[in-house]
């Protein structure tokens, strides 16, 4: 009995008992968790900016929304990217005739017909001189709406204009 009484006593006071080791390792884990290097917060970069381009009626034509292509339309020399409104301006939409074209006259006349477009793509841009006040106001309000909703991604110049990019 006497031997039994002394030996456990020595064991009990040992610092290296299993429970102490468990607590010690728990402490080390906590320490690491507290002081671990934390990665810096990084947000993904947004989409790359679109380059402002100068279009002619011929180069604008391909942006009619067919396939995966974006939908552009021009109003008074400014090219708007109307891809977010593809249901309206893209293929199959009510305004599909305007996709990839100069839509100024059509918008002024509130008409989506084919004859509103300039047929000859090499001709000078429609100068809209024959519009009356109501139609100009119409056009103005369309333009304002576009500027609010869509991005201006370029400008439209006639074929052969000094500003036109060499093809």
């Amino acid at each position, binding site marked *: 009995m006497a031997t039994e009484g002394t030996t456990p006593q020595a064991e009990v006071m040992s610092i290296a008992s299993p429970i*102490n080791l468990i607590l010690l390792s728990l*402490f080390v884990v906590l320490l690491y968790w507290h002081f671990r290097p934390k990665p810096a*917060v990084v*947000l993904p970069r*947004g989409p790359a900016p679109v380059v*402002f381009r100068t279009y002619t009626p011929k180069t604008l034509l391909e942006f009619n929304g067919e396939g995966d292509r974006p939908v552009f339309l021009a109003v008074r020399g400014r090219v708007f990217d109307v891809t977010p409104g593809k249901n309206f301006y893209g293929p199959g939409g009510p305004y599909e005739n305007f996709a990839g074209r100069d839509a100024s006259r059509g918008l002024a006349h509130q008409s989506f017909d084919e004859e509103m477009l300039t047929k000859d793509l090499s001709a000078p841009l429609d100068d809209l001189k024959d519009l009356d006040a109501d139609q100009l106001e119409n056009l103005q309000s369309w333009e304002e709406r576009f500027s609010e909703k869509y991005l201006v991604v370029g400008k439209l110049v006639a074929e052969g204009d000094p500003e036109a990019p060499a093809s």
Partner: protein
Amino acid sequence: MADQSSILQQIDAALDGLVADWNIYTTIFAGIIAAFVVYSVSSSQDPDVHPFLLARQSTGSPIRQKGESATYRSLETPHGFPLRLGLNVKDTGAPKWTAGRRGDLRDIWKAALRGSLNPDGTVAGEQGKIYTVLGKQAIEHSLSQVTQELNVIGRHLQKSEVKTVAICLTDSVELLTAIFAGAFYGFKTIIVPHNLPAETLSAHLQHAQADALIAEAGSLDLSLVTKENKQLSLVLWVAKYGNRHMDWHEVPEGVKGDLNVSVWHELVEEQKDLTSLTVPEYDPNTPPPGLSTVWPSSSQAGEFIDFQSDNLVSAIAALNSALPRTQRFSPSDLVLSIDSLARSYPLLQVMNALFCNASVALNSVAGEKVDFALATMGVSPTVIIASSRTMSDYHDRVMKPHTGPISSLGRWVQSRTLEAGNMPSKNIFSQLARIGPTAELSLDKLRLLCISHRADGDASARLSSEQLTDLRVYTGARVVYALTGPGIAGAIAQTNVFDYRCLTGPSHFGSPLSSIEVTLTGMSEANVSDSIPEGQIAVSGPAVVSSKTTLSSRGRISNDNTLELSS
């Protein structure tokens, strides 16, 4: 069933055995762990600003021109909205819902005289003060006293029909008074740095066609200046306190008669009783004349920058709004400028302080390269405006060599708090950190350090991220670090006051201010698609003279959309 219960019994026995080993050491360990958990939970707090706001600090435009980067703007003024135009001054009696005016320098002085506002917009009327720091003592000036001087000097100059006044003074209350007198009494002011040789000063006066000169008595040889400046018709000496008894009316030979020489304090003495303590009435719709400063360029002559009133107010408003609401200048602040008021960043920050009804302290030794400890001795400021040259010199010369092992330990603990996004509070570790590096400073109340760097300045003066962290830890103040450029009032970009991240290399300059937008130009299309665009810094907006300028320095927009100088 029997099998399961035997497993449970075994576990029970094992746990029993484990707990049976419980002893005094175990109790100590358990105590330490509990204390650590309590500390770690109680000390954790939300960062001062959401990390996402630091991860993308400005917005790029969705469209860019060929050979240029996107245009970057402050988050305060997104694309499609106007940039910050002015102070949004609301006149008393104007309907509540009307938009405020852009304002001008006169509105700033009027706001300073009006005194502080209560949160509900009513006038509390607590005025700030202006202090002149001379060595260890500070002289206090009340605003009404300064207004009186402003009226005397303004009338004197108006009576003499001068149009352009060159001011060549050390930072002092007289310099500020002369600037505001120009705004109220309709003459253009040109701030010429005060330590120039007489030939350069003479050339500056010639270039600006200044017809009046305000300078420190005895600081320059008048005969040399008047010989080359026939248009000069009036000289106003500002005598220091020590030599006011002397006669400063002497006029050099040959120019007698057509040169009107007078002394500031004598004029004020004579006419004090004749002028009122309020500013003259003015028509807010006619802008006051502009203000010119000299941008020190590599050539001796320097470059004249003619700021219009609209440039100045737009920059002042942007400097104010660049600080979050809780960090803005307030009536309880004392703003000390140890950078020369001849430079637009310190000047406009001081104007901003006056507009916010804070007190202002001006130091006659202020300049781009001053001794930080000596210059901050006379007063106990809450905000200090300094140049990057001053701060980097002080860091290299004093802070770094005096950082011993104890300070390093304190710094390490404090910088961990900073990394977590919190400003460390004053505690035992902050005391430890400051034992060596800032022992000679007495900046107990300091809360904000505004440091500006010239875009074309010496690259060795550029502060690194590490140095900014040191400054935060050792001074216990938040830091904003701004980039200035010729032709741009205030600053181009300024770091977020809550951005404590310690990155590698030279520090970035944060996002563009809300008064301007930044585009990088002159990029070759091959490199444009790189994730980090780099090119010449082009700045445009209402704070820019002639609304657009391109700097000679190149910069880049890094991943967090902050502006960096490329070395």
